């Protein structure tokens, strides 16, 4: 009997201690950034955030969610600002009155990756739409994110330009909608010898490339722009607007831009700062 009481007493003390810690968090000087998987998975934020925290004492908690989910999180007031890469969805977010002060902080590009055997013969070409058309006509396996992320939105824009409805043409057979993040899509493509579209940042830092290689790049339609957007105080109770604004301004400042430009994986620059000259 006594042992039981002791056990419960210990459990209670542990709980109270934990409860105390939980109640203190989140620290007053912290903000929540809803962002895309690409800036998190590529390691960019882990590289630049310590400098910002050192300078300002503000901790940035990053949710890596994909553009669609990040904007949804912000709409529900659960984030203080967003860093995303889907111009159409961003425009809707701003038009709906949810976001203000959109600024481009950096760009890189999307690439079409696929197996070295390249059954659709697209390697070395620079026309993404023609490449997708070739993939569809050879019915070569293609992995789609299918998660309403910025990359997913770009992919669907390209299919529209090609005049192909991939779900009708190959849903369930060669067109495989996995409903997952960029890393999951690359893992799946690698395992199935399939084509997919990736942002360059995630690709360069991805550790399981296997037989996959970059096949199509350099199409101007493959530019990938990252924008920071604040929440509109007229529609959202944003208690941390000042802190969020400070972070947005830092990203656009010479220090923030230099930190973004300095991030390299294997000697290759992943993001090109573009606050002063948006693409």
């Amino acid at each position, binding site marked *: 009997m006594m042992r*039981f009481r002791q056990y419960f007493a210990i459990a209670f003390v542990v709980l109270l201690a934990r409860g105390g810690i939980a109640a203190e968090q989140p620290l007053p000087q912290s903000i929540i950034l809803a962002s895309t998987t690409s800036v998190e998975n590529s390691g960019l934020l882990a590289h630049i955030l310590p400098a910002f925290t050192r300078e300002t004492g503000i901790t940035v908690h990053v949710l890596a969610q994909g553009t669609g989910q990040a904007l949804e999180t912000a709409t529900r*007031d*659960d984030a203080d600002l967003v860093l995303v890469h889907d111009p159409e969805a961003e425009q809707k977010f701003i038009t709906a009155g949810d976001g203000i002060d959109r600024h481009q902080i950096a760009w890189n590009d999307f690439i079409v990756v696929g197996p070295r055997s390249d059954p659709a013969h697209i390697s070395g070409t620079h026309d993404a739409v023609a490449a997708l058309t070739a993939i569809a006509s050879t019915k070569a396996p293609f992995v789609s994110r299918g998660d309403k992320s910025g990359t997913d939105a770009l992919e669907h824009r390209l299919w529209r330009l090609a005049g192909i409805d991939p779900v009708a043409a190959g849903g369930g057979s060669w067109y495989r909608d996995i409903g997952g993040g960029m*890393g999951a899509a690359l893992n799946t493509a690698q395992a199935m010898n399939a084509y997919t579209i990736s942002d360059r940042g995630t690709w360069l830092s991805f550790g399981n490339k296997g037989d996959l290689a970059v096949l199509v790049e350099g199409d101007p339609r493959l530019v990938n722009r990252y924008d920071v957007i604040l929440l509109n105080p007229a529609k959202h109770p944003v208690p941390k607007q000042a802190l969020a604004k400070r972070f947005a301004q830092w990203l656009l400042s010479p220090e923030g831009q230099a930190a973004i430009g300095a991030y390299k994986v294997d000697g290759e620059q992943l993001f090109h700062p573009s606050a002063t000259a948006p693409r």
Partner: protein
Amino acid sequence: MVSLSATAIAAVVGLPCGAGLAICRFPGRRALILLANACLGLPPVVVGLGLYLILSRSGPLGGLALLFTPGAMVIAQALLATPIVTALTHRAVEEPWQDYCGALRVDGASRLRSIGMLLAIARRSVVTAVLAGFGRTISEVGAVLIVGGNIAGYTRIMTTAIVLKTSEGDLGLALGLGCILIGISVAVSACAFVLWERR
């Protein structure tokens, strides 16, 4: 730590509830037992989603600012583990209660005291109940990913780190973390058994 706290909550709530369900007779008791058993298969993602909507700043408990904190993760895991502990404790205590209820009544033991006695009698099964709850919390990823947000150094735990590392294609590290997680689980179970068997 998140899993241990959640398991502790589940034990504190689930053990007396499970024993109480075996001892006390009151209207709705059968429904509660059914509910506890039905919740054994509670899908973590659904718990996560429901809790997310409740804790969201635009949800009913948004004022607590718990979303995307370790606190939210503890709540989610406690919700998942409590029915397990409750249902298994109820099952474990039912039989000894049949055997000892007469003696305890003669003794004039109060209900609260009876609960303590019964838990002591059925302690091996009770340990299993708590360990089953712990197994649920430490292996769970769906709910904590939704309400915790997998924020580096804040709400990132073993399981969500494994998901992240897998998505970064860093399969070796993901597997390594997986081995550590299994090791922790085994170690906790072993400690619990050693501690309780010795008595």
